[in-house]
């Protein structure tokens, strides 16, 4: 047989190295390319939301600066001529959270917080996260102001509502946010 790295023995050396030290042969054995954060089965083109060569996931909508018509960009001189806030109650929770997190220091943030409060969401002052009891789930162990059970919380990083079992100190929940005086 060929007794150098250009025959089967050379390949066998790689295969055996792969078992003992995968790092040694990361090039030759390759890696799972589906684990690089790209949805290779997507029916859409990937490049439009490509997060870049060093990011583990696609760019999210809020990361991308879409070229919007200039009218959409609130111009300093006209912003107070814009239509007043529409009825918050028409908005879904998802939009309310978006308004809450992207309108910091603004009336909009308070208005969104208020509407969430109406919908039984509560803002945890320390954890700085919105939580709510799971509707229909009455099983909460109470002990003074401490409560234990399954709640939903809104995960703003992954932008989704997540059920989770935890212990809650009711005193740490924010009261009804001050209504925005507009």
């Amino acid at each position, binding site marked *: 047989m060929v007794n150098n790295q250009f025959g089967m023995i050379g390949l066998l050396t790689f295969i055996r190295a792969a078992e003992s030290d995968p790092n040694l042969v990361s*090039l*030759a054995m*390759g*890696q799972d390319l589906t684990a690089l954060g790209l949805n290779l089965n997507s029916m859409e*083109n990937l490049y439009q939301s490509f997060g870049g060569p*060093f990011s583990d996931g696609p760019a999210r909508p809020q990361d991308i600066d879409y070229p919007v018509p200039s009218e959409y960009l609130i111009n300093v001189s006209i912003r107070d001529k814009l239509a007043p806030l529409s009825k918050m109650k028409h908005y879904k929770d998802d939009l309310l959270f978006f308004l809450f997190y992207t309108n910091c220091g603004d009336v909009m943030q308070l208005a969104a917080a208020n509407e969430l409060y109406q919908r039984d969401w509560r803002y945890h002052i320390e954890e700085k996260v919105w939580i709510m009891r799971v509707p229909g789930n009455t099983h909460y162990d109470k002990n003074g102001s401490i409560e234990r059970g399954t709640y939903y919380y809104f995960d703003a990083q992954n932008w989704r509502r997540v059920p989770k079992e935890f212990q809650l100190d009711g005193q740490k929940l924010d009261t009804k946010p001050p209504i925005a005086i507009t």
Partner: protein
Amino acid sequence: IDEPPGFLERSEYLLKDWITIFHTHATRDPIKSFSNFVNKMNIYGILKGDEALTRFFRHATQMCIDVTYRNDPTINNTKIFKYIDPYVRLIALLVKHSGETSNSTTKLNLLNKILGIVIGILLKDQEVHKQNFQQLAYHRIFIMLFLELSSSDPVLENIMTNVLTAFCHAYHILRPSIAPGFCYSWLELISHRVFLQRILATAPQAKGWSMYSQLLVDLFKYLAPFLRNAELAKSVTLLYKGTLRVLLVLLHDFPEFLCDYHFGFCDVIPPNCIQMRNLILSAYPRNMRLPDPFTPNLKVDMLSDINTQPRIHSNYAAAIQPPNFKKDLDLYLKQRSPVTFLSEIRGHLQISNEPGSRYNVPLMNALVLYVGTQAINQIRAKNQNPTMTNIIHNAHMDILQNLAVDLDNEGRYLFLNAIANQLRYPNIHTHYFSCALLYLFDEANTEAIQEQITRVLLERLIVNRPHPWGLLITFIELIKNPSYKFWDHDFVHCAPEIEKLFESVARSCM
């Protein structure tokens, strides 16, 4: 040299003034703010001539760079951007409004001048700061300027292809082997979603694709020396993984681009980067349906696409050097003599200007593809398509067989790789080289040739996916067709792991 006194101070005042305008009321009436500012530039003598303008941009760019070194970019990049973004906007407005609307020459001259200034400062900065070089400001200037100039605007749309050319030219000058301190930003810039869209999706294909292939070749050439070692440093692994991500986006969105330029890429990708090379060779046109290679009794030569000519955007014939070698080659292909030519081929292939490798891989790849395409042309001239019978007993196969026999293990490994690089999606090259490889296996006068053919195929198959279609059908034919007596060879049973591998592939075939 002999700068007018106070020019630097005037430049600094103007830049800061513009930054203030940008952040306060430029949004109110951008055009008015800009035209007022241009008047001011004029009054300050910036626009009176080419030299003054060049000085201003050099000072202004340097001020942006200095802000980066004065602020810790990891903490304060917003502050840095609030300084750079207005400057970039000013550049974009000056480019857009210089000269008549229809006169793209003045616009592009100004753009190329400014890109040249930024490049000059970057290379100087890298030389001075060495390992303390900070890439952030340059990254921001390039990407924001590109975004500004590629925003949908009729004046800019009109010069977009030239803007792309200017940026590709700039990125080629700043390729990683020239600006290694900028290499991560460089990969971000050439793979930015807007840049990909512009150069691969909307630019005239021939122009955009060709320029982009050059940038990828720059990247592969830079990575090659660091990828030859088995163990990769973290910094190399990151750049390599980033490259894989970009190639996956190209494979998914622009497979035809990888199909057309695969040859140039395989010239510069090191032979041990098997998965990355497989990724490129696995690309196939989106309008093509690949038959499952494991289909029992798949009749490859009956496939509708199997005799289509693939596009190859590389001038491989011109890569066959020196000219007298090409002349002798063509003579031999034409008249199958003098036989002495066959014994001279190896000598040409062993002249490598690439330090550290004994063979001229690009010449090997070009020679194999050239001989194969000449053989195909000859077969097609007789209104036939390649088959196991009409590809043999001719000058072309003489050369391939001679290379299989005459080269040493390393040379033969590289030769067989050159053939295996053509085993791609159903097309006439895949078909010809698949038949050729099986014929070389069948006619081998030593078992070493058969072993190395097996090695070259197997190492491409045991790596993580994707696997090129042509590679799979060739290997399946080799192990299924009893006339190759594949299973009789000792090297098939040389170790339990190897034997297990073959059996697992054989099982998937059966």
